[in-house]
């Protein structure tokens, strides 16, 4: 239901084909997306990003998540072994359902962004009663 934007026709060019102004690496945050009856929940891993470094936009059905890492190199230390780098996070999803944008909740806990997107009233399944004549 929530798929990643892939077709080039409806999007600006893919970020990979453009050069960035800053030379910080930009990562694709690993994400979990699940759907309940009322909500679509997005969990995105962005270690190093503080609450003031998150930028979320929803335009029509295109959800953009951006995170700016606030982690800094500690003074007085020299890196001797490296398996991860500090950088920024960026990801775009197309949601298939209409979202009630006034009730979107976003929290950032332990480097994981929790995004609760309530489905709009029209998108929710409706039970249709059968009248007996």
């Amino acid at each position: 239901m929530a798929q990643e934007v892939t077709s080039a026709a409806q999007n600006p060019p893919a970020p990979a084909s453009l050069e960035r102004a800053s030379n910080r690496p930009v990562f694709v945050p690993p994400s979990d997306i699940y759907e309940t009856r009322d909500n679509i929940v997005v969990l995105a891993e962005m270690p190093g990003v503080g609450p003031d470094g998150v930028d979320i936009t929803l335009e029509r059905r295109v959800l953009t998540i951006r995170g700016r890492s606030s982690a800094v190199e500690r003074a007085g230390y020299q890196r001797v072994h490296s398996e991860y780098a500090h950088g920024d996070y960026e990801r775009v999803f197309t949601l298939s359902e209409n979202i009630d944008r006034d009730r979107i909740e976003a929290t950032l806990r332990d480097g994981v962004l929790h995004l609760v997107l309530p489905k709009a009233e029209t998108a929710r399944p409706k039970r249709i009663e059968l009248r007996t004549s």
Partner: protein
Amino acid sequence: MALSEFPRLGFDPFLELRRMQSEMNRLFSGYGFAAARDFPPINISLGENRVLVSAELPGVTSGEVTLNLQDDVMTLEGKREPKAQENANWQRRERAYGSFSRTVQLPFRVDAEKVQARFHNGILEVELERRESDRPKKIEIRAA
């Protein structure tokens, strides 16, 4: 690449290939190091008689991690459980769950009493100090 080399065919056989290529580029853009990496990824920095071990552990709380220290070997263990509700219909599962364990050999023996560990925005930082008895000693040379 806007123009196709196959205008007479009415379709571009490479369009799908190019689309796949850009999808692949996107998939691997986040992996600057190794494709299959150990969890959690660890950085080690050296200071003067100090070592800083940091690990990316998003979604893990301090109660879910145990740190063990023996001489110069540090082990980091824990478990990450999915916190989803029931009746959830999964669209995408990319985050890894389950037990993890990493063992790091430090460049020197550390003082177990002087270890500082803290979590900050999903990054665990462990600061360890070199044992007093293990530090290099400076020897004065006297002129005869």
